[in-house]
């Protein structure tokens, strides 16, 4: 954008030097004039972010390098022990499992979300808005209510088991509650709309002419999908992955409600450090680990988005 302006300016100068000088002058003046309204608009947000995000974050980083004292408080002595403790097998296992389940959740979200988003995006816009609404409505129900209802359905004497036993598909009650599987189901139900919305946005933007051109050149629908549709909707796919993966990784109330303490994930681990074992420094170091994973994901996203910036639009 900036370079385009520059070229245009240079081109003008050839013809009328005056007009180009005036426009440069005006631009500088405009920039100064815009500074104050910009501050009033961005200022409150900046202050908010500093007070409620940046400062707490700095504090978390700070205590993650401190020692825990015997009464659940913090001793202000520098240590890296909180980070080396993460490397203990028992914690690595929890982290690994969290990543595994978050990854599984993300993959299933994309596999379910993409066809659904595609279907909706190809409908006339009025109908598409209604269908998106249908996806959003369950979201207005309290998450805990939804999770505990899944818990009830999954109980050994709950709806699912008794139904399956009645129709004779199984002979004894299912043992699905407090398993990894039901935790993933819970994560899926909580995260699916976050996957669908960015996918919908990018598929809806996809120009049908590209698909026609591909078909015209002899590509079967599956080839068109893999070589045209997927690459051109990649920003949406990556956005969905991030919006699902990051919260799934840290979410603690889902394993709490459906895993019953049997399925320990990193979110619950952090919660336990702060609220139960009162080891704030270790909880802080685990939190920082989560933040780092998040940053890594975002960095990957900007890499892909940057590659894409010049391609899509």
């Amino acid at each position: 954008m900036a370079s385009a302006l520059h070229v245009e300016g240079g081109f003008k100068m050839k013809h009328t030097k005056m007009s180009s000088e005036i426009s440069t002058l005006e631009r500088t003046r405009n920039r100064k004039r815009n500074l104050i309204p910009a501050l009033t608009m961005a200022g409150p947000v900046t202050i908010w972010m500093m007070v409620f995000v940046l400062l707490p974050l700095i504090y978390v980083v700070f205590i993650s390098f401190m020692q825990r004292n015997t009464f659940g408080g913090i001793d202000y002595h520098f240590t890296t022990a909180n980070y080396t403790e993460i490397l203990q097998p028992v914690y690595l296992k929890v982290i690994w499992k969290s990543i595994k389940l978050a990854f599984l959740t993300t993959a299933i979200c994309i596999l379910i979300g993409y066809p659904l988003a595609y279907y909706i995006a190809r409908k006339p816009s009025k109908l598409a808005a209604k269908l998106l609404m249908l996806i959003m409505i369950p979201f207005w129900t309290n998450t805990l209510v939804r999770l505990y209802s899944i818990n009830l359905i999954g109980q050994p004497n709950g709806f699912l088991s008794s139904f399956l036993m009645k129709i004779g598909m199984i002979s004894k009650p299912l043992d699905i509650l407090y398993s990894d599987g039901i935790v993933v189901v819970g994560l899926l139900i909580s995260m699916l709309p976050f996957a669908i919305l960015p996918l919908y946005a990018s598929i809806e933007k996809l120009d049908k002419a590209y698909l026609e051109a591909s078909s015209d050149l002899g590509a079967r629908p599956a080839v068109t999908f893999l070589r045209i549709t997927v690459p051109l909707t990649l920003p949406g796919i990556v956005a969905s992955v991030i919006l699902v993966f990051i919260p799934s990784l840290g979410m603690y109330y889902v394993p709490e409600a459906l895993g019953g303490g049997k399925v320990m994930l990193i979110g619950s681990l952090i919660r336990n450090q702060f609220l139960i074992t009162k080891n704030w420094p270790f909880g802080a170091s685990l939190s920082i680990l989560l933040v780092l994973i998040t940053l890594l994901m975002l960095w990957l996203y900007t890499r892909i988005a940057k590659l894409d910036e010049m391609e899509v639009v």
Partner: protein
Amino acid sequence: MGEQAEHIVSLIDVDKYFGTNHVIRKFNLNVKQGEFLTLLGPSGCGKTTILRMIAGFEDSTKGMIKVQGERVEDKEAFERDVNTVFQSYALFPHMTVFDNIAYGLSVKRVPKNEIKARVKEMLELVQLSGFEGRRPDMMSGGQKQRVAIARALINKPKVLLLDEPLGALDLKLRKQMQIELKRLQKKLNITFVYVTHDQEEAMTMSDRIAVINGGVLEQLDTPDQIYKYPKTKFVADFIGESNLFDGTVLEHAGDVVKMTTEVGEAQLQICPVEMGKEGTICVRPEVMKYSKTPVEGFTLSGVIKNMIFVGSQYRTLIVMDNGYEAKVNRVKPDKEIKEGERVYLYWDLEDAIGISAPC
């Protein structure tokens, strides 16, 4: 069979509805092998829909579509031996020029070195050698256009369909690309079916023009025949400029046909309209004449409104008694006449065309 092979694309009694909207009406068209055929009409006339039905992006509601004598209605776009140059180019934005042009071959699993050679050949053909690694968004409109053409031609299609391919280019580039396209078509001897709303473009490039209005084929003929002998009032008005006078045929007296119109009587030679039937006289502005005194056989008269310079010629507007404005074009200005003066219109008998009223 011989006749069928000659017709590379045939549309037989094709109808198309979008919902309840009847956009193509009983359309019949035969495209000859190797010709440059243009579908010409105002926007919304259905010309692009016809092209899209040939390409396979749109189903016909009724009728037959044949490519090389073979019915294609049940074939998907990727199964048809035709390729399209899109109005928006539709170049794949995530691929380089090389990958865009190679796409048609690579989906057919043509060996890599053959793809390389053919892409190179195509780039030379459209004069874009050295652009292999560029991305479409780093190219100008004219360059993108060339890539789109190369991409469509690499599959060696029987027919190339072009949907207003020059619509987005500026006038000078458009003229240049018109010549370029014509050169390519002659060199490769591929049938082109070309959609445009620009009658000048259609005139300069086409072997034949199909003039379409409201989903109906109005006339199919060579450019000069369409200009000289328009078959309908729409064609007379849409192709070039015309003075049109509705009237009734009084008599066929040997070679001469006498007609009476709302604004007076007139004569002409070429007239398919029978005695007593209604028709329209079409006279091009460049052959229209006027005089201060009545000419034998003509009683059309009007008042000079003004004379304007329109670039290459001088145009005199004459307001007839019923308010119709007749146009007369001359190379040199006429200094003899004044605004408000009454003049009598006439023409050489062979310069006027009679058009039957629609049934």
